[in-house]
């Protein structure tokens, strides 16, 4: 997620209409024809953060194609990681495309720009990734579901893990923007030890020599950092070069399958927290990982898994209710009766997940870097904001 504010904008715009057509013939029989559901996916398909959006889209579309439900139509647009483009796309999708459900936004600032307006207009929003605290607490909405997590969760789990491991003092670091500040406060919420030093880096920063020198100098027991996307790649490469012998803990974003190959061996051994891992032992996950590899010829990332689960949740609701009856459809979503690739999955009172969060370790398996679960950091974790939500 290198989000450097460059002032240089790409004007490209990609429009793709994907319609599933299979299984139309098998509909013959006694099944009542439900209203078709039209989904608008707004995600980042160009620019620095494109790999996250591409994985989200590919995971989502894999589930759609597997289901072969001809009643589901998906319109995909590229937000270029710009809030104003995302808002424009959502207006267009709601007004001209007349979609029923919006989904796909990767970044919290884009979600904040789009979600409140969409839910107010009676559309459903299913979040495949971004889940800022504002939408989990006072700003919660009956039409807003976060399928991924609440933003703080993975950082909280990292804090819990650091406590469990008995790290007495931690050096903690994140970029200076709202999600970065939430990250450090999430970490501290569950970390009992002493914070040796707390550093905010610039958003989009790529050189970490100065911070690495500070970390070496701090004498902390371990390092926690949250640097998504390209920032994490840069940091881990420079960290490995510096040869500092200190355990590293972080949320999964810097060690997700989309960027592990770019970091290389430098990532091996790092502990990272996530609610999903490719080696999670359940039927749905095995089928997902195999299906994704077969179709796209690469291992799925966390974002792909979240996209996949979101589509499966939607499909499960379509089985049970008609989108024309918003109340019933909402209930069907809330029930979350689908086989999640995470295993157990349920929604809490603010329609954010209640789920286990794991500690994964980066391993090298036959020359491919991937993650393996080594511990469970938190069980049935909801989030810190649910009680502020009056729903």
């Amino acid at each position, binding site marked *: 997620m290198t989000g450097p504010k460059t002032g240089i904008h790409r004007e490209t715009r990609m429009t793709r209409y994907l319609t599933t057509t299979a299984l139309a013939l098998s509909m013959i029989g006694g099944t009542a024809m439900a209203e078709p559901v039209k989904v608008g996916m707004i995600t980042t398909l160009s620019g620095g953060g494109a790999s996250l959006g591409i994985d989200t889209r590919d995971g989502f579309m894999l589930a759609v194609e597997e289901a072969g439900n001809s009643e589901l139509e998906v319109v995909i647009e590229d937000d270029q990681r710009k809030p104003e483009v995302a808002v424009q796309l959502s207006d267009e999708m709601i007004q001209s495309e007349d979609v029923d459900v919006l989904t796909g936004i990767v970044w919290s600032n884009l979600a904040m720009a789009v979600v409140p307006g969409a839910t107010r207009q009676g559309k459903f929003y299913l979040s495949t990734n971004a889940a800022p605290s504002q939408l989990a607490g006072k700003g919660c909405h009956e039409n807003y579901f976060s399928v991924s997590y609440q933003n703080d969760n993975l950082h909280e789990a990292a804090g819990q893990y650091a406590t469990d491991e008995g790290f007495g003092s931690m050096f903690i670091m994140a970029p200076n923007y709202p999600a970065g500040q939430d990250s450090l406060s999430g970490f501290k919420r569950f970390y009992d030890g002493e914070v040796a030093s707390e550093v905010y880096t610039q958003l989009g920063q790529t050189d970490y020599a100065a911070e690495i*020198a500070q970390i070496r100098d701090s004498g902390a027991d371990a390092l926690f950092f949250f640097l998504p996307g390209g920032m994490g790649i840069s940091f881990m490469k420079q960290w490995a070069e510096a040869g500092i012998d200190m355990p590293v803990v972080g949320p999964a974003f810097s060690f997700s399958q989309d960027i592990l190959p770019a970091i290389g061996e430098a990532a091996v051994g790092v502990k990272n927290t996530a609610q999903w891992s490719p080696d999670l032992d359940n039927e749905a996950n095995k089928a997902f990982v195999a299906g994704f590899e077969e179709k796209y010829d690469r291992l799925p990332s966390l974002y792909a898994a979240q996209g996949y689960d979101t589509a499966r949740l939607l499909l499960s609701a379509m089985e049970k209710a008609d989108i024309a009856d918003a109340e019933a459809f909402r209930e069907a979503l809330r029930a979350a009766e689908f086989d999640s690739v995470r295993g157990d999955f349920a929604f809490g009172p603010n329609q954010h997940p209640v789920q286990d969060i794991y500690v994964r370790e980066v391993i090298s398996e036959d020359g491919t870097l991937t993650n393996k679960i080594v511990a469970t950091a938190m069980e049935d974790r909801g989030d810190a904001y649910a009680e502020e939500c009056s729903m």
Partner: protein
Amino acid sequence: MLLLIEQLLNGLQSGLMLFLMAAGLTLVFGVMGLINLAHGSLYMIGAFACAGVAAATGSFWLGLAASIAAAAAAGAIVEVAVIRRLYRRDHLDQVLATFALILIFSEGTRWLYGSFPLYLNVPPSLSGSVTLPGGIQYSLFRLAIIGAGLLVAVGLFLLIGKTRIGVQVRAGEADREMIAALGVDIGRLYTLVFALGAALAGMAGALVGTIQSVQVGMGEPVLILAFVVIVIGGIGSIKGALVGALLVGLTDTMGRVLLPSIFDLFMETSAATSVGAALASMAIYILMALVLIVKPGGLFGARA
């Protein structure tokens, strides 16, 4: 104290890489009067060429050579095909056209390499760290970058100051009609200068890409810093580019390190780090504003 010296080295290293970027930009602006926004794309091309060739051959050094060659070639082709038509146009046209080039290069790179960041790592012979006099542990590759940056700086000064081509470049800055009248093939000179600037940008991209991440769009943030550098240094001046780049590199690094600890003296730690970091990200722009107040043409600006 040791930490401070290490941080000075870090500032020096980032400044020298900025110099490689800014040198080409300032030459092109000074000699041809052209604003080239696509300079960041040449940086990206260097990094991708290095990563691609290094992955294919297993040799970082071949990759580095390829990065310089690829960026120079891309620069020369772009100059002949597009830029040449822009010299007589006004700056807005130049900005629009070179902006279009950014889009073409970015999407072209994505088409060739895909959207996922590429792997490029430090060659084994330069990996790890060394102990400097005084007991400072410092990354060998960063030291090598500092060395390479200094060498290029010296080479560039000799080229501009002591050679025939250098004379022509300086003359071209001063009066392009006159040197054309004296029989210098101005078209060839422009292509050469543009390719030289591109090669430097490509080299910077490869060296920096090795310790950072190689991905589409990596050039634009650096481009902005390079513009700050040439505005501080004075447009068209190589000396200005060097001084400006070192000032920006050191201000940025030291600001990030020192400001939070300064605020920590009289504020609560959490707030101090946050405020310090915010101010640090503004530091180079504040520096630029101060320089422009004192010297509106930049430190070594020829045409103030």
